[in-house]
């Protein structure tokens, strides 16, 4: 016998999923009118039915948010708001397993990641912003700041609960109330969060959650009763939102796509760089806007790095996301799998060489083996377009300047990585890279204190840290 890890499945007994959900408006769950199924992408099992909010529901949510803003939340002292946020954070920690299991069932990401990354970071965002609530005059916008009012927030399916936390925590800390719409394929943890709001006795209407698809999102974006829009998702939709809000009074922050360069210099710590490459692109099945999807390798170490990368990739454990030993889970939806398949076919057609990790994929559900393309150039579609899957494009360079030029040669600018044991080279490279987040000798590390956001078509504004908080505040006199 060899050391094949026996299945170590996390129990799903800790969650109870209702057959049908409504919306969370004014502190109460209200029935929806139309519903659509939400599935477990690892098994295609229908988990529940999610309500599709139309105009009436969005109107009701905005009205509830406005009422809560005017009568309660904007009048409450920062210290009191902070207490509610601390309470929410603590309850999230107490119910961490429930959140992790539900996230994995609904999203397809491995339980190890939802347990060790998504849920603890989501709670950390509430803790961090709870601390800000009574210190807003030190946020750098002058001693007299005001919230915007009602924030409309639209979040993606790749980190459902974490993106909720990135949006809701700073909004509430700053004194705004919110209407949030989770992604249509991953609404369940947002609805569990609604329960947490009730448990924390958050005043009715401070957080409203309406579920639905793009049509619901459009109703939020175009609603005249909303003062600020925060969106995380594709650049395509981001542009539609930017156009929609341009002629209005609404403030807007957008966190959009990326095609991040992960640059490995020849003097890098190679084994850790290989780990960084794996973590950069295969974390969360590559469904990460800041994924290190373009590996830019110095030619002098390219063969060595690729050999080590392939043998490391052969050890990636792909499969049941509920197994505690799974590294890469299921692709979130059939649509996304089709998109990944289409773009990788373009890679083949344009002459790049495909190599996939030799792993057995389950027969049911949506799966894509961790894959790399070598021989990629800037002219390939797979070097330019966001694949949003476990697919890495490998390019090479000869001089440091060439690495930077290639890294910056993209309409995106969300993140980048630099690997070198030479401090001066790291400092030089990070100054040249046109990306909102640059990691040195690590990748995909997140912290609520650290602002996150993009250059160019990767977005407007920042989330996290003082910079992120300021997006939910305005200086008096700037109304």
């Amino acid at each position, binding site marked *: 016998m060899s*050391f094949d*890890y*026996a299945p*170590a499945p996390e129990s799903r007994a800790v969650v109870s999923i209702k057959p049908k959900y409504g919306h969370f408006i004014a502190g109460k769950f209200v029935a929806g009118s139309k519903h659509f199924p939400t599935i477990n992408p690892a098994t295609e099992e229908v988990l529940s039915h999610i309500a599709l909010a139309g105009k009436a529901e969005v109107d009701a949510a905005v009205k509830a948010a406005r009422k809560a803003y005017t009568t309660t939340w904007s009048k409450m002292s920062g210290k009191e708001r902070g207490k509610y946020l601390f309470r929410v954070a603590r309850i999230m920690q107490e119910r961490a397993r429930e959140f992790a299991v539900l996230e994995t069932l609904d999203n397809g990401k491995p339980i190890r990641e939802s347990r060790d990354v998504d849920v603890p970071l989501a709670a950390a965002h509430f803790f961090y912003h709870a601390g800000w609530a009574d210190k807003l005059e030190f946020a750098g916008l002058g001693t007299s700041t005001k919230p915007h009012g009602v924030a409309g927030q639209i979040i993606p399916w790749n980190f459902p609960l974490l993106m909720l936390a990135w949006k809701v925590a700073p909004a509430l800390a700053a004194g705004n109330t919110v209407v949030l719409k989770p992604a249509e394929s991953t609404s369940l943890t947002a609805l569990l969060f609604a329960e947490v709001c009730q448990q924390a006795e958050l005043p009715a209407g401070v957080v409203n959650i309406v579920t639905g698809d793009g049509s619901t999102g459009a109703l939020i974006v175009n609603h005249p009763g909303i003062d600020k829009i925060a969106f995380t998702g594709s650049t395509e939709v981001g542009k539609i939102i930017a156009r929609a809000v341009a002629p209005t009074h609404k403030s807007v922050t957008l966190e959009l796509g990326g095609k991040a360069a992960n640059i490995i210099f020849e003097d890098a*710590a190679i084994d850790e760089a290989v780990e960084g490459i794996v973590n950069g692109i295969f974390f969360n099945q590559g469904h990460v806007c800041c994924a290190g999807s373009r590996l830019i390798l110095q030619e002098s170490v390219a063969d060595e790095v690729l050999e080590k990368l392939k043998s490391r990739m052969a050890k990636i454990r792909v499969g049941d996301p509920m197994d505690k030993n799974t590294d890469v889970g299921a692709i979130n939806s059939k649509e996304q799998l089709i998109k990944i398949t289409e773009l990788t076919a373009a890679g083949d057609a344009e002459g790049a060489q495909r190599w996939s990790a030799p792993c057995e994929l389950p027969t049911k559900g949506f799966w894509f083996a961790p894959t790399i393309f070598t021989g990629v150039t800037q002219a390939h579609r797979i070097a330019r377009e966001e694949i949003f899957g476990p697919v890495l494009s490998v390019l090479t360079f000869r001089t440091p300047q060439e690495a930077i030029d290639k890294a910056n040669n993209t309409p995106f600018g969300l993140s980048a990585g630099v690997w070198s*044991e030479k401090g001066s080279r790291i400092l030089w490279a990070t100054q040249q890279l046109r990306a909102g987040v640059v990691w040195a000798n*690590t990748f995909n590390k997140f912290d609520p204190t650290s602002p996150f956001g993009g250059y160019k078509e990767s977005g407007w504004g920042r989330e996290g840290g003082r910079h992120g908080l300021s997006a939910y505040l305005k200086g008096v006199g700037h109304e």
Partner: protein
Amino acid sequence: MSFYGLVDGTDASLKRYLDALPGVDQVGADARAAMLATRSIKTTSKRWAIDTAISMVDLTTLEGADTVGKVQALCAKAVRPDPTDLTIPSVGAVCVYNDMVATARTHLDSIGGHHVGVAAVSTAFPSGRASMAVKIQDTQDALNAGASEIDMVIDRGAFLSGQYIDVFNEIVEIKELCGDRAHLKVIFETGELVTYDNVRKASFLAMAAGADFIKTSTGKVAPAATAPVVLVMLEAVRDFYSMTKTRIGVKPAGGIRNTKDAIKQLVLVNETAGPEWLTPSLFRIGASALLNDLLMQRMKMDDGYYASPAYVTID
């Protein structure tokens, strides 16, 4: 000596060889080891891992207070870890000071333990602070007494002051002395080398000089066999294999006291060097208290509850 064609025995060639090694990023190595520590090993895998770990134990007593009686008791335990369950494998070896080697060998042979090795710590263990003549005599004594494995310490003073060639030459001399008679394990005392860069450098140095095994620690200095240190050493043997097609063994020692820790070590081996290293001829765990915890966990898997510690022998 050919040193695998990697160095020619001169200071300059050794420097070139060691300088060409990539660095180790401490944060990254710590993170990788921590991630692997989250692997959940259950049911049949756990059972396999416990038995494999038992067969890899170098059951150790290295005390000033060691006596013939103590060493004989250790040998009995090494051959039959649980006298009531003979399906349990013997450990890999017993590890003692050189004056106890003859006692251990004789006693093991007399109780049917021919297959259990005797490892002798050597070269002025644990500090390594003695003349080369003394170190050679120390090793010679152990070999003459029947040691099948020599666990030598390196001169950390020489290593830390950059006299790599001195460290290299000592290993070469001891290896020559061991010849075909005994396997050579080279102990770095990673707690004194401190940085992972040093651990990698020492690993490649020792492997080129002829080590059959590289070993973390003496057990007398903390920290000892931390997961990231073992990770770096496993990466080194993996890379050395791809350079030379020779598999060098790894022995963590010190601080591995329970089944959970031992299984974490096996996971590190499995996912770093690879499953080829999951054999007592390429991976050993230097320990004393560990064995009883492995036995307790094994009983728990059979019976479904934790037995009283009174059911495992204290030798």
